[in-house]
């Protein structure tokens, strides 16, 4: 075991009225400072084993960054303890601590020491870092003269060559282009082969599923799940897309809710086939949903609901595959087409469920909220939809 966390808790006390000067203290000496307590983490315990890749996922504000910062000794935990074996280096952001006024040579050494290397050791690895980044001829250039691409390469090289036993990585992969992301992957795979441990905080479920051995889901500061990355990803989708007040009804078939189908992607298109966030009133809605079956589905039915901001279903429809075709395990289904748009301006959601068969209640995927969009325009009429009505008014004679 290389990381052992037991009952870690962290509460931020956020003053409702921030007193951050001596002046305010002096002018209002008796004002009581009220705090709002925000439980960033509650009683979180987990283990990370040697050579394991652990993903930490959760929505914004779920406490995942706080957990990473406690593990990195940036914040202190209020309760609980974390024990770590070996040298741990955090990468909360690429290039932190780079000084634009210093040469890249000096920066590399300084950063290496920040990552926990000794000064001599950092000096010794200088050439390796510069070679890895391909910046040897720019070693004596001040960092302020570097392009942003060069800076990222240098920062990444420092991180790789720091060669910590445990790496804590926060969304680093999100900054670069595809090529850079690929380079990150290659490096992480090489580290995996070398038996190093990696803890990765991310929003990207594809990364979690492809790279992590286990994953940990945080929900509002609570540890909601630790284990199989795919299961974690599904639960994450459910947390993210689920109706806000959905109560977990037991599945009639006794199976697990949405484990059998997972949403891969969902988006709206305009008439030109471009992805859009919102739709103009009266413009047809291009709807595209891609789901993946985790287990074989004999004769699935895909249900789509358009729901208004109050949760009322405005309309809905079902589709099944042509000729009652089934889906093999791992197969993907595209559900798409154009929907007539009679919706009045306002906020709407698209929800989707998948039934295993025509039988009522045999869900392969419970109803998930996949899209959240706005219909914009000048309101005409009352209610939720506008309809063509051939109605006239005249005075009775």
């Amino acid at each position, binding site marked *: 075991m290389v990381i052992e966390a037991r009952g870690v808790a962290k509460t931020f006390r956020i003053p409702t009225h921030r007193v951050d000067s001596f002046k305010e203290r002096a002018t209002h000496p008796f004002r009581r400072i009220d705090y709002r307590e925000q439980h960033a983490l509650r009683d979180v315990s987990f283990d990370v084993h040697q050579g394991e890749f652990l993903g930490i996922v959760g929505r914004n504000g779920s406490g995942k960054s706080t957990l990473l910062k406690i593990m990195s000794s940036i914040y202190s935990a209020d309760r609980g303890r974390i024990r770590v074996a070996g040298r741990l280096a955090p990468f909360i952001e690429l290039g932190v601590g780079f000084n634009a006024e210093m040469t890249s040579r000096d920066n590399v*050494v300084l950063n290496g020491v920040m990552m926990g290397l000794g000064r001599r050791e950092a000096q010794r690895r200088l050439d390796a870092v510069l070679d890895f980044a391909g910046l040897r001829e720019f070693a004596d250039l001040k960092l302020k003269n570097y392009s942003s691409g060069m800076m990222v390469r240098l920062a990444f090289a420092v991180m790789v060559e720091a060669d910590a036993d445990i790496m804590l990585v926060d969304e680093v992969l999100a900054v670069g282009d595809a090529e850079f992301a690929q380079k990150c992957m290659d490096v992480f795979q090489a580290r995996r082969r070398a038996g190093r441990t990696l803890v990765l905080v991310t929003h990207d479920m594809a990364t979690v599923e492809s790279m992590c051995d286990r994953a940990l889901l945080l929900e509002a500061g609570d540890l909601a799940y630790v284990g199989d990355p795919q299961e974690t990803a599904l639960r994450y989708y459910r947390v993210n897309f689920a109706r806000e007040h959905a109560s977990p009804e037991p599945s009639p078939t006794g199976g697990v809710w949405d484990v059998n189908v997972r949403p891969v992607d969902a988006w709206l298109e305009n008439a030109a086939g471009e992805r859009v966030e919102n739709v103009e009133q009266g413009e047809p809605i291009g709807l595209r949903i891609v789901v993946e079956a985790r287990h074989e589905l004999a004769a699935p039915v895909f249900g789509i609901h358009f729901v208004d901001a109050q949760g009322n279903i405005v309309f809905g429809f079902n589709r099944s595959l042509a000729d009652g075709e089934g889906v093999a395990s791992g197969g993907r289904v595209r559900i798409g087409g154009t929907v007539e748009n009679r919706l009045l301006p306002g906020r709407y959601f698209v929800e989707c469920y998948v039934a295993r068969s025509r039988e009522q209640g045999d869900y392969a995927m419970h109803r998930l909220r996949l899209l959240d969009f706005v219909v914009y325009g000048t309101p005409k009429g009352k209610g939720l939809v506008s309809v063509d009505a051939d109605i006239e008014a005249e005075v009775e004679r």
Partner: protein
Amino acid sequence: MSAPLVEIRGPSALGGGWRRAADLLYLMAVSEFRRSYLGTALGYLWSLARPLLLFAVLLVVFTQAFDLGERVEQYPVLLLFNIVLFGFFQEATVLAVGSIVASEPIVRRTQFPRLVIPLSVVLTALFNLGVNLVVVFGFILVAGVDPRWTWLLLPLILVALVVFTTAVSMIVSALNPRFRDTGIIWSVAVTALFYATPVLYPIELVPGTVGDLLALNPLAPLFELARKWVIDPAAPGPTALLVPALLFVAICVLAVWIFRREAPRIAEEL
């Protein structure tokens, strides 16, 4: 390869071990020094220009408007010497106030020993002091002060001055994240301290209660001793020692206490 599990203790003044802190301190101060001296052709002259200009102005005021030139042995070199010594204290503490807030990215995103930040400011100022003292001793010799064995005691004073400066830097830098007006208050306080310390005048020229009070300033004995050992062996030396020494120790203890208390929370206050 199974290293033992070690409990992490969260952020602290020396988080990550003193060895690492010392390495970081050295690297930061050296690069800062190199930047200010090697980066610009006039870097060295610039760092000297400030104390020399201040010296020129004060020398005119205090020898022409007042008659300190006649009443104090070797007044011009004493004034220059004192200005350079106090300049170190002032430069270090004033720059230290905002140092932690200015280092926000590394404090909030890396495992960085908090103490290193104000210490590197003090160390950089110390480099400057060393360079300036070379010039000052040039002036002292030119002014006709004979070298004496007591010059060898100067490092003792410098050590005490550095310790005191470090303590004050720790206090103001640790308070600033919580009280953002620390910098404003300190810039006024340090100016007041400039006049309350025997920089412009020898302490024996201030009569009565005021003189007695000024003698309690922990910096006062340092300046008085420096004057006696380096410039004028006939000077009276410090008049009070016990209270300044106690204050000195109290401020050092306070600095350690405040810094240790604030260090774990600094990242959250930023």
